[in-house]
């Protein structure tokens, strides 16, 4: 059986890649995908702990996260479509109307 540390290392790598992507990508869609990556990194942690602990709580939490992520994807993508329609651009640096 693969020890839980391996899962955690993979999960941390995935999370860091997601976070880095969120900070440095300029396309909103890419940022969005990176956020999904971070969520799934967390899911991996949940499932790994659940398995090593021998109960199902972590898996249940992972399912909750997936459901929330689905809902979030729905709303987020809707906003993305609306932004694209209105401004003909998905560059985050162009979305700066709400400033001083």
């Amino acid at each position, binding site marked *: 059986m693969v020890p839980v540390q391996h899962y955690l290392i993979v999960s941390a790598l995935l999370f860091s890649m997601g*976070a880095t992507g969120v*900070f440095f990508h300029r396309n909103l869609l890419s940022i969005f995908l990176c956020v999904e990556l971070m969520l799934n990194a967390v899911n991996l942690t949940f499932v790994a702990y659940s398995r090593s602990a021998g109960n199902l709580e972590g898996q249940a939490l992972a399912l909750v996260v997936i459901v929330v992520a689905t809902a979030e994807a729905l709303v987020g993508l809707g906003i993305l479509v609306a932004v694209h329609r209105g401004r003909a651009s998905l560059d*985050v*640096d162009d979305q*700066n109307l709400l400033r001083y």
Partner: protein
Amino acid sequence: MSMASRLLPLIPLIPAISALVLTWLTWFGGSIGRARAGKLASGAVGVSLILAAIGFAEIAGSPPDARAVTVELFDWISLGSFRASAALVLDPLASVMTLVITGVGFLVHVYSVGYVQKEHDVHRYFAYLNLLTAFMLLLVLAENLLVLFVGWEGVGLCCYLLVGYRCQKRSAIDAGMKAFVIDRVGDVGLLAGILMTFVVFGTVSFQELLPLAPTKDTTAVGIIGVLFLVGAIGKSAQIPLHVWLLDTVEGPPPASALIQSATVVTGGVYLVVRTAALFAESPLAFGLVGAFGAVTALFAAAVALAQDDLRRALAYSTVSQVGYMFLACGVGAFGAAVFHLLTHAFGKALLFLCAGSVLHAMAGRTDVRGMGGLKEKLPVTYRTFVIATLGLTAVPPFAGFFSGNQILWSAFRDRDFLMWGTGIVVTFLTALYMGRLWMLVFEGRFRGSGIEMGPSGEPPVTWPLLVLAVGSVGIGFIGIPHYSAIASFLADPLAATTHEAASLAAEGSLVLLNVAIAASGLLLARRVYRGEASSSRPAAEEAVRPEPTLGWLRGRFGVDALYGRALVRPLLFLSRTILWRGVDRTVIDGGFHGSARLIRAGSEGLRLFQSGNLRLYLFVLFAGVVAMLAWMMLGARWAF
């Protein structure tokens, strides 16, 4: 329950209600027409007059030991052992005062109806006039010092309102403010006196308090007396607080007639007479009353001689005559003081209404040097003015003769020759300045220029003048010496004890002396001012004529200027420079604006953070979460 006790509260209430109605109309822009407003106001005071007469008749008709009707309206203040109820009392003193106030007040109201037709805001004028009458009635009907204080303050307020009635005129506003502020000085005295009374006597009710006076410590009673005297000096315009009354002439002349005859200025005399039992206990307070009265009577009479403004000359005359009443109190002749108050109220109201007629005819010009020869133009005013003049000077059989003589006789009888001499000099000066006004205004040739007068310059309503004239002739007869109805009616406690030693011959010769002095004053005035009245020099030329002997008098001994330098300017400096610029603008405003500026500067810094850069937001969010996690983990370790 007698008739009087049921009707008593209505006496001040009816003018108050009328004042409320008229105020309502003023505020909400309604109008019931000029004539009807005047009729409402006069009618209200007229009803009070009838009620006062009923009350007077009932009081006079009851046996001497039952001549007081007390009405308790409600419990006003009840704190521990201290109780004060809103109670009114109608006793001989109050009923006489009530009659004078409503009587003179009614006539002044009626005269005003014709007089103020040209003023733009008649409702407001009559509301003030009614309110003044109501508060004055409350003052004299009060059964305890607190109710009296309410009336006292109300009278001061109405004085301010009436004097400042022509509120577009700067001088009227200033005069109103002056009256109000100087009044406050006296009020401090009265208020301190009331507190002191409560401390010493444990009650503020006149009926409980006055019989206790001989049983208390003389010093304490004397202090109360002096404090009351301070209040009386402020209200009755005695030296050194007399300056406010002279500016009240800025108000409409009928208002001056009411303020200076039956209402405001009599408040102080009334207070002293009402609390006579306190003054009788303390030689110090007693002496001070007489001293202030004598100095004021002398000073004001001298100054009146040199005033060229008709209204101001009459105002100084009021100050002098009220001083004379204080002098009477100071020699223990409280009954005579009230009697003189009575005769003076009629005479002075008449004089001010006459002055109103003269001003009406002269299109508002007040300088007597520009008048003259008004005898033909204003026949009714002329005749009533002469009657009032003779009434004020001690010429028999006019009213002032009786009351003036009674005061002088009281002084002489008590071997108080200083007071007596002062009285004689005041009588002479009074005759002189009244004679001067008479000559300059009515006799000789008309010296004014640029005024076209019609065949009759009389104001529309003149019958109040006639009624007052009849009053100032007839009122004296209620006080004929030895048959004096008024002294026994007022049950003057001091006069009753010493009256028997009187020698008829001495009294008779004193009366003759007094009449001779008054007559010589009038004749001297005729001799001196007749020529001036007949000269045709225009007023402007006379204004620059040097007259060194009268310079001090004309400048009123510089009292106003002294107050200006010694009190008003330092106060203004304190208010403007220290309190306004220093405390208010620097400290309070500075603190307020400073805190606002601080918050604004902080916000200026923080808003830069709202850059609109989404990735920066995310980074900060992330860094924040990491920092919190780190803190929780490390902090948890540190905690253990």
